[in-house]
């Protein structure tokens, strides 16, 4: 390999554009980013193409028309989010405009009363839609189409009787004038009102129970119904809300133009629909926000205004409106359908990982790693009663604790550990375990963080977040996959987070990347602070405090290394490598009674996989072209346990060559002359006697001294 391509591959292992894009795409705020850029584009286009576009006069003028339209788009958005559609927005708008003028100009009611009555009438018209669609379960499209015709016809019937009265009577009111033409700090008053309503609406839609109900019904009506959400009632009120928003728009229009014409609000429904979709509100329901609605509204208003001002005549305007609608909805449909596919295609970003020559582990060889049957006949404990004991630990009373797939902590006691009970129910996926000075059991829970269980079984949270990495797109402050932990004499909890890019169920994909996605984190219970110590580690897994309490050992699974991090003494803060080029993927590390350390290997390396790790291009193609269940993953069918010294010398290895009882070994714990084995996918805990070990040694004593 040439130097250049080598350098490139190493750089690629650290930084990747593809990863940046994938992380960007999975951001929720990226969804309205495209509409937002489109909006900016339209504004810049108008500013360049139309002379004097950016003058204060013109901006005030354009934005004063924005408020009315903005309300209507909001009205359309809320019903789209609930999974419906409202074609009667234009008609309700016109009706509200008319009612406002009649009440204000003809009956000369005070303005407060006018506002209330107009809102009521809008709500009432919306209620008709809501009743038909929510309670009678009619299709939203046809229903609102019919109400559109009925409301408009009623308007056309009644309007002429008042037309002359409205036109000739002129009611003076400063408040009315202000509503229509006033400004606050240079911003038109109606825009200010829109902004206030928008903020309230945003809170309602995204931060309140009714808002969640609306989105839930829109995204999955059946699931919402099964969850006990009152579907009919929620839909009804959504249409009432829509009607009221439209009537507010109508009110603004009345105040601004003081006129009601037979074609007021004509075609508004198509414009509002286009705007909402353009802003990224999904037609399929469940997805949409106030911000997106306003982005869409701005784009459409500026665009149509711009076309009119550029003197583009009728025909092209229609064609353009239709085309924009097609493109916007087309992107929406295709994007919704393929987004996750696209992200998953580019999310896994393999990098170069050269592990070095594979150490010999064949049976009967001279190698220290030579396979044997030491674990094959391990005594099974809790067979069939513990599902996936990733880590095991024993307390001073000799009871076994282990976490299971159900998210429980099981306690096994009795002479032969026949009493199996659920000690605590935490949830998530309990992984590494450790006792603290007060005999609280601390647990790393995949998907949740670090939790603790008091001796009486009460669960408490230790920490579930750390400081966010600066300049990183993906928010990594939440703990995704806390893996193993150990506790220093001063009470500080050191724990590993294996990866920040994958979840518990997809951790194996992280191996395909061959990148440093994990980190070592420290939580100080004294201050309650959690801080990341080391970043960009390749699946940091087991953690073990050295016997002298000056450093921690940690295992890096994919790169097959053991490293050591000094937490005290002269080398404090430095990292050194203890073992390189292990024959398998290291998992948990624990102390042994003779002053050395146990290491579990979850699986053994294979030549094929090693080769694949040296060929990132191959893995990239595999990830893109082959379905996930057919991917080449690292082997986890055959594991072992080794013992090593603090200096990195490997002393012994223990195997279950048959790979029947203990195929993948994720942890082991020495306790009073026995070695207890755990496995992430296993259905048992195993135990083998250690004839040469100190039969009185137990790890609680080793950490915290004999019990007082």
């Amino acid at each position, binding site marked *: 390999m040439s130097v250049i391509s080598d350098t490139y591959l190493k750089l690629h292992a650290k930084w990747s554009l593809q990863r940046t894009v994938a992380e960007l795409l999975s951001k929720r705020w990226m969804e309205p980013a495209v509409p937002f850029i489109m909006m900016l584009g339209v504004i810049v286009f108008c500013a360049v193409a139309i002379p004097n576009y950016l003058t204060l006069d013109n901006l005030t003028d354009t934005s004063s028309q924005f408020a009315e339209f903005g309300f209507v788009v909001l009205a359309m958005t809320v019903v789209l989010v609930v999974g419906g559609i409202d074609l009667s927005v234009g008609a309700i708008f016109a009706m509200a405009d008319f009612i406002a003028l009649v009440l204000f100009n003809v009956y000369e009611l005070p303005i407060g009363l006018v506002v209330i009555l107009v809102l009521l009438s809008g709500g009432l018209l919306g209620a008709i839609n809501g009743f038909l669609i929510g309670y009678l379960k009619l299709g939203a499209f046809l229903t609102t189409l019919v109400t559109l015709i009925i409301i408009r016809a009623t308007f*056309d019937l009644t309007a002429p009787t008042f037309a002359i009265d409205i036109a000739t009577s002129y009611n003076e009111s400063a408040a009315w004038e202000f509503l229509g033409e006033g400004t606050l700090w240079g911003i038109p008053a109606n825009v200010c009102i829109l902004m206030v309503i928008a903020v309230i609406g945003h809170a309602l839609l995204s931060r309140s129970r009714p808002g969640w109900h609306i989105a839930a019904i829109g995204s999955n009506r059946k699931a919402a119904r099964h969850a006990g959400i009152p579907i009919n009632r929620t839909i009804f009120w959504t249409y009432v809300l829509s009607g009221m928003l439209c009537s507010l728009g109508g009110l603004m229009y009345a105040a601004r133009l003081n006129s009601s014409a*037979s074609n007021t609000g004509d075609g508004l429904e198509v414009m509002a629909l286009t705007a909402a979709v353009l802003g990224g509100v999904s037609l399929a329901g469940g997805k949409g926000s106030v911000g997106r609605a306003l982005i869409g509204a701005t784009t459409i208003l500026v665009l149509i205004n711009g076309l009119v*001002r550029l003197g583009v005549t009728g025909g092209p305007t229609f064609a353009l409106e239709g085309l924009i609608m097609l493109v916007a909805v087309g992107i929406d449909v295709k994007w919704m359908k393929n987004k996750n596919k696209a992200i998953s295609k580019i999310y896994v970003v393999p990098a170069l990982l050269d592990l070095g020559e594979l150490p010999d582990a064949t049976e009967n060889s001279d190698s220290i790693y030579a396979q044997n049957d030491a674990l094959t006949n391990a005594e099974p404990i809790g067979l069939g009663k513990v599902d996936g004991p990733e880590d095991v630990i024993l307390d001073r009373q000799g009871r076994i604790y282990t976490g299971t797939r159900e998210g429980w902590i099981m306690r096994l006691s009795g002479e032969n550990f026949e009493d199996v009970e659920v000690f605590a129910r935490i949830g998530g996926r309990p992984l590494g375990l450790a006792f603290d000075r007060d005999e609280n059991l601390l647990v790393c829970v995949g998907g949740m963080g670090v939790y603790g269980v008091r001796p009486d079984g009460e669960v408490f949270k230790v920490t579930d977040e750390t400081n966010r990495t600066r300049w990183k797109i993906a928010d990594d402050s939440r703990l995704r996959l806390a893996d193993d932990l150990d506790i220093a004499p001063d009470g500080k909890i050191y724990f590993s987070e294996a990866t920040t890019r994958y979840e518990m169920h997809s951790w194996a994909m992280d191996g395909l990347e061959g990148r440093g996605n994990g980190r070592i984190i420290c939580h100080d219970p004294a201050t309650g602070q959690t801080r990341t110590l080391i970043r960009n580690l390749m699946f940091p897994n087991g953690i073990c405090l050295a016997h002298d309490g000056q450093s921690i050992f940690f295992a890096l699974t994919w790169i097959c290394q053991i490293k050591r991090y000094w937490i005290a003494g002269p080398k404090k803060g430095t990292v050194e490598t203890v073992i390189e080029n292990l024959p398998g993927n290291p998992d948990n590390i624990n102390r042994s009674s003779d002053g050395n350390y146990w290491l579990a290997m979850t699986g053994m390396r294979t030549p094929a996989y090693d080769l694949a790790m040296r060929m990132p291009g191959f893995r990239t193609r595999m990830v893109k072209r082959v379905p996930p269940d057919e991917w080449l993953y690292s082997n986890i069918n055959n594991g072992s346990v080794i013992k090593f010294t603090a200096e990195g010398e490997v002393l012994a290895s223990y195997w279950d060559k048959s790979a029947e009882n203990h195929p993948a070994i994720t942890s082991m714990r020495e306790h009073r002359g026995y070695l207890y084995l755990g496995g992430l996918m296993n259905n048992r805990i195993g135990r083998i006697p250690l004839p040469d070990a100190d039969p009185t040694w137990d790890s609680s004593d080793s950490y915290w001294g004999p019990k007082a």
Partner: protein
Amino acid sequence: MKRNILKGLAVTVMAATVALAAGGAIAAGKISGKTERMVRSDFVDALNGKTVAFVPISLGLPLSDFWDAGIRDAATAIGMNYVVKDPAWNMNAMSQAISALISEKVDYLVVQNPDVQVFAKLFRKAEQNGTHVIQLNMASNYRSSGFVGVDWVSHGQEVGDDIVKQCAAKGGKVAIVQGELTAAANVWFNVGLMKAFKASGKINVVNDQAAQWDATKAHDITAAVLQQHPDLCATVGVWGIMMMGSGQAIKEAGKTGEVLVYGSGSNSRPVCDSLQTGILDKHYGYDSYLQGRDVVNAIQAMAQMKVEPGERPFALYTPIDVLAKETVAKDDCRDLMGKK
């Protein structure tokens, strides 16, 4: 075409007369103190670089296309800038176009109102901003600098009087095919019609459905009415193109010539064709190209008299040209405009 030129001359003279009368003594005094050359320089100063903007309801109709051409030809001939915006029936776009023109401070704004009310407030703002607003053919409630167009009530009355003359003796049954109920032209035309009908007392309006400016609807309405009233004497509506549908229904019923079809509007080629084939019997029309010229003439007068916007409102009513089936000639109508 000769007839058109004569008509044009007549209108120009009339416009000038009205404008001068409106200008009154002050203006007259100033002009009389100057030489011909100074008048000429007044003229140039007043119009040089000024802009006239036109906003119809929609282009693409004979009526508005003729206006467009009329204003454009006359305005550019005297060195004015001309801008036209086509909202294509979209009231929102129309309101935006007018607002934009106001904030651009164009000098003269010519608008065809869709409705008596809708832009009244904008017009007031425009005139406060120094823009002269001239309303074309369809007026609004706001009395702006000027109005150029048909005097709809008297126009309706004129048509009504003729219907009375024709039908009073023949049972007097008349069907009115309305355009759109709230459109100004439609409302005032009908007021004029009813004035004439009431005055005679012999006319019975058997139907006054609105066809929404649609010939097909006019056709269906007329067909239904004919079944009910075979002795119908006449149908009448404010727009000739729409009334062609009504005439078609009468032709199908085999009553061409028995039931008279009255229309009104711009004298464009299809109208003359329909008159010749007997679909229409009488058309009370006007030349909208010349209305466009009237607008520019009025602007010239206003500019030279330096009146402030809305200071001296005036109206120029368009003369009506009656075309009948028996007398229609090729010159009476303008050919449709193709794509420019």
